[in-house]
């Protein structure tokens, strides 16, 4: 039952672009989307920088053509836009023509509205419609409604920063086991005071542009985004005579078993996830041409992930790697999704993105990320998403099935 998983469509909205083309242009131009926060009234506004999407909620609602009675949280708005782009990109005319599922993911859900209106709810009923939208599953259901996907084929994953990667993995398995013919997979998270304050208290936010894999890194920039892929089975590809954008050939998930939020010193979880993904793909480490790292620019992650890369590839043979989080910020549940899109774009265009803001290599090892845009033939790309709770996931994409 080892059939290939084709990626036939992608959709994305992030701080560096409102669709796939805009995101790609920014990646090529080195245009980061990191700024001071503007849409959330937080006491930390001068102490942090974030990857914020320009559109206001009203503008997003207008793009989706929603009526004023809608109760979409910002997370749901972003998710719907990205999912619709993916389905259009895959040229799906009739979503019901094949057994199609949806696996979305989020960590914020409707928290952005809840934290704004919680006390209002007690005073009057103006905003009570948002209460139902708080739930992590509600975002997914709204996307399903927008796409016309049957409720029984829909679910939500919530495993922190590896959520979207896990959604992609689960979707692939449902196709391989014959449960679905195609599946829309990904995730979404918007900025919220809840996450800003929480990360602030863990003291892992940077007050300036983040510097992944740099010796003097100070922490991460939070970001907001949504991204979805359309995965299709061989049967659909043949019947519709479709061409894939790329293939998902490997995936792996493992638990670090070390700490609720910090990674183990030697990156056990990340090492295992990468090894598992390589095993599923049936390829050797030397076959990987580019690693899109998790690279959040926290003291802990970059050290742990760097060591894991060395364990898997051998220090002199770590492939070209970079983190794109200096462009978009760390978009939490959506990260695995937007970075999957970037990995596919890298394959399509044979390009490796620069790891922005890098100056000084880390003293613990001899690893330097790619710092300038590099045009080179790429056949396989590996992407890491390492989440709180020790949940580590790796995806491997290829030009060939």
């Amino acid at each position, binding site marked *: 039952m080892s059939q290939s998983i084709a990626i036939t469509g992608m959709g994305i909205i992030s701080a560096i672009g409102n669709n796939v083309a805009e995101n790609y242009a920014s990646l090529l131009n080195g245009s980061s989307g990191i700024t001071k926060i503007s849409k959330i009234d937080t006491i930390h506004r001068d102490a942090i920088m974030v990857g914020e999407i320009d559109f206001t909620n009203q503008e997003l609602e207008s793009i989706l053509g929603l009526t004023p009675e809608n109760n979409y949280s910002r997370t749901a708005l972003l998710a719907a836009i990205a999912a619709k782009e993916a389905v259009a990109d895959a040229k799906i005319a009739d979503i019901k023509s094949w057994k199609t599922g949806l696996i979305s993911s989020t960590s914020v859900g409707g928290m952005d509205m809840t934290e704004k209106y919680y006390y209002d709810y007690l005073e009057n009923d103006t905003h009570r419609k948002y209460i139902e939208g708080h739930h992590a599953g509600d975002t997914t259901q709204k996307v399903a409604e927008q796409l016309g996907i049957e409720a029984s084929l829909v679910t939500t994953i919530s495993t922190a920063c590896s959520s979207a990667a896990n959604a992609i993995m689960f979707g692939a398995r449902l196709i391989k086991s014959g449960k679905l013919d195609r599946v829309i997979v990904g995730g979404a998270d918007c900025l919220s005071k809840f996450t800003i304050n929480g990360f602030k208290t863990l*003291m892992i936010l940077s007050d300036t542009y983040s510097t992944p894999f740099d010796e003097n890194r100070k922490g991460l920039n939070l970001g907001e985004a949504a991204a979805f892929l359309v995965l299709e089975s061989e049967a659909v590809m043949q019947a519709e005579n479709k061409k894939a954008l790329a293939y998902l050939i490997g995936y792996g998930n493992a638990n670090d078993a070390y700490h609720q*939020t*910090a990674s183990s010193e030697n990156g056990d979880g990340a090492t295992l996830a990468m090894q598992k993904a390589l095993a599923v793909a049936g390829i050797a480490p030397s076959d990987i041409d580019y690693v899109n790292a998790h690279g959040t620019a926290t003291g802990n992650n970059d050290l742990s992930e760097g060591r894991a890369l060395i364990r898997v590839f051998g220090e002199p043979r770590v492939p070209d790697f970079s983190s794109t989080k200096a462009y978009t910020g760390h978009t939490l549940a959506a990260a695995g999704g937007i970075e999957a899109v970037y990995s596919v774009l890298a394959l399509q265009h044979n390009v490796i993105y620069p790891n922005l803001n890098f100056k000084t290599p880390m003293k613990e090892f001899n690893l330097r990320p790619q710092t300038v845009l590099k045009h080179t033939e790429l056949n396989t790309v590996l992407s890491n998403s390492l989440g709180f709770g020790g949940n580590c996931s790796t995806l491997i994409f290829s030009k060939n099935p």
Partner: protein
Amino acid sequence: MGDLKQELKEKIIEQLNLEDISVDDIADAEPLFGEGLGLDSIDALELIVMLDKDYGIKLADPKEGKKIFESIDTMANYIAEHKTK
């Protein structure tokens, strides 16, 4: 200073959910992290919040905490010198 040390021990036990540990179990000079009480990185962050909340001391860099939180003695000395509440 004796009162402050007693107070710190009580606060630590409560704030960090140290079940089955009493004030008498914590020696003034005993290492709080690693060996000794075996506190971890999240506990360190909680202590930073406690310094702010109860003593008005703001630490910007979590790495400063390492020296300050070595033991009840070092904590008490630091707080006595820097507190604003």
